[in-house]
């Protein structure tokens, strides 16, 4: 079963320089939530952005990952006029 760290690593590989957060919603490693903030999404529709993530996850989406709550952004949302701090880069 792909755990969040492994999923995150594959998404970082597919989207170099992106901010990727993956959390396990149920503790069973098959209901995950992912937030991907990547410049590679620029100019793409939401559907295409999600398809890019699904393509990166490949065969995991055909069973091992039963459910993926996915949020994609091209950049961090601006709040109170400044750029929001991107989470730790580790």
């Amino acid at each position, binding site marked *: 079963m792909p755990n969040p760290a492994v999923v995150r690593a594959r998404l970082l590989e597919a989207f170099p320089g992106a901010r990727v957060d993956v959390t396990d919603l149920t503790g069973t490693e098959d209901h995950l939530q992912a937030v991907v903030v990547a410049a590679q999404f620029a100019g793409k529709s*939401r*559907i295409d952005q*999600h*398809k890019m993530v*699904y393509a990166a996850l490949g065969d995991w*989406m*055909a069973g091992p990952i039963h*459910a*993926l*709550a*996915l*949020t994609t952004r091209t950049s961090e949302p601006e709040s109170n006029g400044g750029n929001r701090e991107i989470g730790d880069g580790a």
Partner: protein
Amino acid sequence: MSEDIRSRIQGLIKGHKVVLFMKGTKQFPACGFSNTVVQILKKEGVPFETVNILADGEIRQALKEYSNWPTYPQLYVDGKFVGGCDIVTELHQSGELSKELAVVAAAAAPALN
């Protein structure tokens, strides 16, 4: 995908202004994500058709290939793929879904009277 299943899918997608391929039914959604979209469509106040992909394994497999989308639910409006739970939720929250559904309803209105 066989031509038969492709035309079945197209018939379902084009045969209804708003159609949701989901796990379960409106009355008995079998998955939280499917239920979320059913509730959103009810809030939007738009008539919609549902297809229970748990009861139709052939459609369940073929639609993923047809739309190049690996999960359910899948919402189609006016023959076009709108998204799964995440995107439909975002569109609902931003008001974009209401606009899109209003356009479809307006286009369908003359046919009603």
